[in-house]
């Protein structure tokens, strides 16, 4: 159980700034996910917290105690690596007990803890095997077990699911969440997968090019993204961005673009006439009208993708291919003319220059 705080932390490799001026507080018992595309600085951040990478500037606190210069071995944290990094010359049992042995715990105590962790993860029958005799999913569990056995104050997980196949990944995702709910330990989880970030986390920090773009609960970030990067990163299929200009309409300001016009969201007083904006539309917020003739945002379907539980339909609008989520029983077909409507309060507006949200 521990809180973590990054205070103006930066990491430079030569002239490249991998992480710049990061300030982030992670509460005791919180499941915090650091998410972003590769090279965004999330893994560097985790490694600095682990003590595997040095900090170039700033301070890292664990439980309000500065650990900035402390070696990894003294930080009392456990980490799960993307490659699992199981010790190939040791049995599963020795892998699990290794940290305890290094810390000089008694043999009986180690055996008891190893057995308990193995039972918790369902790997009790694998204890005498070597890592190379395990499947990917089993190795993953052993790697988790090696962290669990330690009963550390802090768990760090670096892309632990990304080497699993798709089906197993979804299953392990749920198991991870159940496991850490039970343990009530602070977890810092790094992933590039927005679905893992959304489903697992209490809070998410989204990284891009070494800078935290936004921190919040998954739904806060999804519903009120601070900029186009966050808006485009979360959600699948992603939000569509259309260029538009604020124009006068019969019932108040409109957002007019190439071949469409949509009613602007409230509050409308901050929009000036002629102001250029980027309109963000989530696939599930779109209402499709069959009555395309004379519709202010008329188009025709170019592609239908049945996903099973829903059907995603694509149609050109404002120079982009816009994704629309529809019911699975839809009879829409390629070539069908449709009109596109979005409730004004579901629209996201961004500044075209800075990418920042205009809604907040």
């Amino acid at each position: 159980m521990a809180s973590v705080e990054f205070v103006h932390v930066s990491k430079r490799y030569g002239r490249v700034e991998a992480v710049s001026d990061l300030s982030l507080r992670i509460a005791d018992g919180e499941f915090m996910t650091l998410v972003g595309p590769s090279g965004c600085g999330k893994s560097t951040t985790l490694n600095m917290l682990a003590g595997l990478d040095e900090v170039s500037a700033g301070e890292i606190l664990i439980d309000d105690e500065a650990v900035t210069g402390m070696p990894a071995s003294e930080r009392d944290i456990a980490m799960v690596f993307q490659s699992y990094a199981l010790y190939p010359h040791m049995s599963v049992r020795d892998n699990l007990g290794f940290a305890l042995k290094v810390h000089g715990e008694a043999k009986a105590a180690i055996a008891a803890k190893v057995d308990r962790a193995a039972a918790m993860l369902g790997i009790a029958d694998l204890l005498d095997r070597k890592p190379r005799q395990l499947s990917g999913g089993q190795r993953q569990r052993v790697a988790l077990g090696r962290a669990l056995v330690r009963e550390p104050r802090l768990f760090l997980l670096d892309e632990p699911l990304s080497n699993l196949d798709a089906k197993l990944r979804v299953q392990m995702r749920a198991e991870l969440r159940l496991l850490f709910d039970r343990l009530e330990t602070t977890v810092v989880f790094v992933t590039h997968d927005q679905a893992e970030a959304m489903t697992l986390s209490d809070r998410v920090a989204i990284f891009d090019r070494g800078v935290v773009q936004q921190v919040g609960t998954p739904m806060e970030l999804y519903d009120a993204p601070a900029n186009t990067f966050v808006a485009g990163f979360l959600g699948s299929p992603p939000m569509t961005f259309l260029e538009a200009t604020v124009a006068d309409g019969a019932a108040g300001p409109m957002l007019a673009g190439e071949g469409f016009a949509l009613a602007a969201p409230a509050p409308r007083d901050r929009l000036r006439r002629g102001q250029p904006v980027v309109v963000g539309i989530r696939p599930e917020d779109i209402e499709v009208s069959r009555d395309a003739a004379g519709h202010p945002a008329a188009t025709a379907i170019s592609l239908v993708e049945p996903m099973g539980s829903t059907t995603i339909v694509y149609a050109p609008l404002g120079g982009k291919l816009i994704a629309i989520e529809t019911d699975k029983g839809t009879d829409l077909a390629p070539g069908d003319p449709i009109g596109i409507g979005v409730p004004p309060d579901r629209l996201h507006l961004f500044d075209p220059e800075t990418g920042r949200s205009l809604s907040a």
Partner: protein
Amino acid sequence: MAAVSSVPARPAARSRRRPSSVSAVSWGLLRWGTIALALLAVLVPFFWLVSTSFKREVDYLADPPRFLVENWTLAGYETLFSRNDLGHFFLNSVVVTLASTALAVTLGSLAAYTLARARLPFKLNGALAFWMLLTRMYPAIATAIPYFLIIRDLQLLDTRWALIVTYTAFNLPFVVWLMIGFFEEVPAELERAAMIDGCGAWQRFTRIVLPISGPALVATAILSAILAWNEFLFAVMLTRTEAKTLPVVMAGFITDKGMLWDQMTALGVVTVLPVLLFALAVQRYLVRGLTLGAVKE
């Protein structure tokens, strides 16, 4: 499924085009010819050594040479063992080889680990590694006289220590270069995991890196040992009577009265045997060690 299995199996093997038989034959000839040549080059001298050791003088001096022994004899071995204190010299060879190999592998792997993992200032890693290799780039004889004088002044002439120190120095660059390659193959994440698990640098080396590098260490040790076991130049230079090793004793059969081929070849066989048995015993490690990292597990 029934539909699938009812499809008649095509005689794929028969309809597939074979490479033209002429080129297949010539490839086979080339391949087996090369193997045969390599085997001949390695085995004929060895066969000659072994067979000569069992020949009578009239047979091994015969002209034209006789390949096969008609009247074989153990006389060479009998004279060899009765006239020489072989046990003493054999022990010299064993002690010198084991001690220098152990020292070279221990010191060398420590150095190699540092050069493979630590980032030394001023790009010293590459410079140091190259410098070590440099010591193997000139012929050893070039340093023979100064080296002899140093060992003399240290009062180590004709002692096992002289050879142990010398062979350790010879083998160090070789061990370092081989082991750098192996250590660099050890995934960095393993060591990072060990750091998280509470290991300092020494524990990471002894508990994680060394056990993983076992086959590589064995392979390196074997090659070092063979080098030390067979070394002649410095052994003959630095020893007189007490610390002589087997190769020096062997050379002693070239006398002013002639070549004592029977004893020399008999000792040759005796010298080869332990190395041969040892290499056969650890062959598995040798092959695994030398191909480590070539194939991902």
